[in-house]
């Protein structure tokens, strides 16, 4: 019997240390390992370098002051273009930023996974990405073309956090939505990877209803598996659930005002994951009650 890697979100965070480089899967406000991020917020782990196609994962960590350095091409909530905590943190100079192009980030992770120092890319030439990252170097092709390209540096991670639809206890992760994002790449580029999922299933059941290409993350790259239903909330995790747009709007409204944000934190982020999910259910119940009252009135 292969190793059972199931653990809790707090177990995962127990393996993280301040000062680490952490890669976070998903994209924008899509399939983010939010339950793991929330567990991180409950810990005292800080001073992190975060590598992410940034969404509210970056926002929450930035708001809590846990990011020392951010490696990203954007911070967005998709249906709401600007991530409010990301923009606020940048405007207050709260962390150091390594701003890369989306493709440079992908090739940097690929280089990290492939144990290469860099991958040559055209992206970045002529842009201010070269100026704001003075450590970036170009490399000349040794072949007849002699082209001078950007050497997109390897992005190596101490740990990767990703959220998938299903996984087995051994760490085989399955995505059921239309886009794998870069979750397998994050895991491969990391010394340790942790997969949270909507549901842990028996290995034999993984392919009962789905093709083998849905098996995105292989167990040999995975150290821990966490079952966290609705663990991507409020980001999307299709087909299990869509983005919670009502809640995302409430998050953005709260983020714009320090007092409102304090209240949001007290209401949603001061307890454990069960308390969070209960508070989210209550949020929707309140909205529903309010709507019913309005209809009656």
């Amino acid at each position, binding site marked *: 019997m292969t190793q059972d890697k199931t653990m809790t979100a707090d177990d995962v965070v127990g393996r993280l240390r301040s000062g680490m480089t952490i890669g976070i899967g998903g994209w924008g406000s899509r399939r983010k390992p939010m339950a793991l991020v929330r567990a991180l917020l409950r810990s005292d782990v800080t001073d992190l370098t975060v590598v992410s196609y940034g969404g509210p994962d970056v926002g929450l960590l930035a708001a809590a002051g846990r990011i020392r350095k951010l490696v990203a091409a954007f911070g967005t909530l998709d249906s709401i273009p600007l991530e409010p905590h990301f923009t606020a943190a940048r405007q207050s100079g709260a962390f150091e930023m390594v701003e890369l192009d989306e493709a440079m980030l*992908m090739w940097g992770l690929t280089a990290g996974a492939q144990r290469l120092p860099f991958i040559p890319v055209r992206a970045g030439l002529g842009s201010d990405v070269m100026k704001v990252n003075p450590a970036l170097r170009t490399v000349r092709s040794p072949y007849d073309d002699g082209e001078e390209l950007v050497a997109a540096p390897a992005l190596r991670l101490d740990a990767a956090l990703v959220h998938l639809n299903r996984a087995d206890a051994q760490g085989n992760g399955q995505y059921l939505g239309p*886009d794998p994002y870069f979750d397998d790449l994050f895991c491969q580029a990391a010394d340790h990877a942790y997969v949270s999922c909507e549901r842990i299933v028996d290995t034999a059941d993984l392919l009962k209803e789905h093709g083998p290409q849905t098996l995105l993350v292989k167990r040999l790259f995975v150290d821990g598996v966490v079952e966290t239903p609705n663990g991507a909330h409020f980001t999307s995790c299709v087909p299990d659930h869509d983005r919670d747009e009502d809640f995302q709007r409430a998050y953005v409204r709260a983020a714009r005002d320090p007092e409102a944000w304090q209240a949001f934190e007290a209401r949603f982020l001061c307890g454990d994951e069960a308390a969070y999910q209960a508070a989210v259910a209550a949020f929707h119940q309140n909205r529903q009650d309010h709507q019913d009252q309005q209809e009656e009135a």
Partner: protein
Amino acid sequence: MSVTETGLPAATRAEYCVVACAEAWRGDGEVLASPMGTVPAIGARLAKLTFSPDLLLTDGEALLMADVPAIGQRPGAVEGWLPFRQHLALTATGRRHVMMGASQLDRHGNQNISCIGDWGRPTRQLLGVRGAPVNTLNNPTSYWVPKHSARVFVERVDMVSGVGYDRAAAAGPAATRYHRVPEVVTNLGVFDFETPDRTMRLRSLHPGVTVEQVTGATGFALTVPDEVPFTREPTEAELRLIREVVDPKGLREREVPA
């Protein structure tokens, strides 16, 4: 209200913009059209339904649509799969023409969507550079600006995200090899870089707009030819497609109010 010969309400400014955006993809053949923004998305669909039938379009997520549904509707059939990783890799194949937005754009076609002010501590953080560097170095990149103003069209952009002609030339042959900024469409007109020094030129005015309006809303000296044509009229068939098929809810009028 003015009407066309057969009694259709005459084209609105938003509809001239849709047609001008569609024209960006004319003659592109079998490439991925990546429109960002509502009017470009309507334009790309119009182009595919009319003069550029071979274009590929995504549903805004990971699927390539086999048909042309109305904006906001799901496709009836899917012809391919294009998750983000493949989309980013496709960019470098060159088989794509993207129309991006721009928070700032200079006379050389340098675009900024990253931040306003000093990058080290911006006065206003925007999206970040996103895919603008990879787009501009690898496939044709046009721009759409729904509100033409001197705040957008500036002498110098704060953070070069999308690369313009001067910066590409300075970066050398690897940068210019596949670099092209075919056009810029705004609510006032259409612009290109068909000048000897590759700086921005007014190519056409949308009907109802004057040269003075454009130069007054542009923060740098624009090349203005002696004769500036008007942006072409939408055909009646195009107007019907825009109004009845692609954008029946009139989202275009919200992006470009009359």
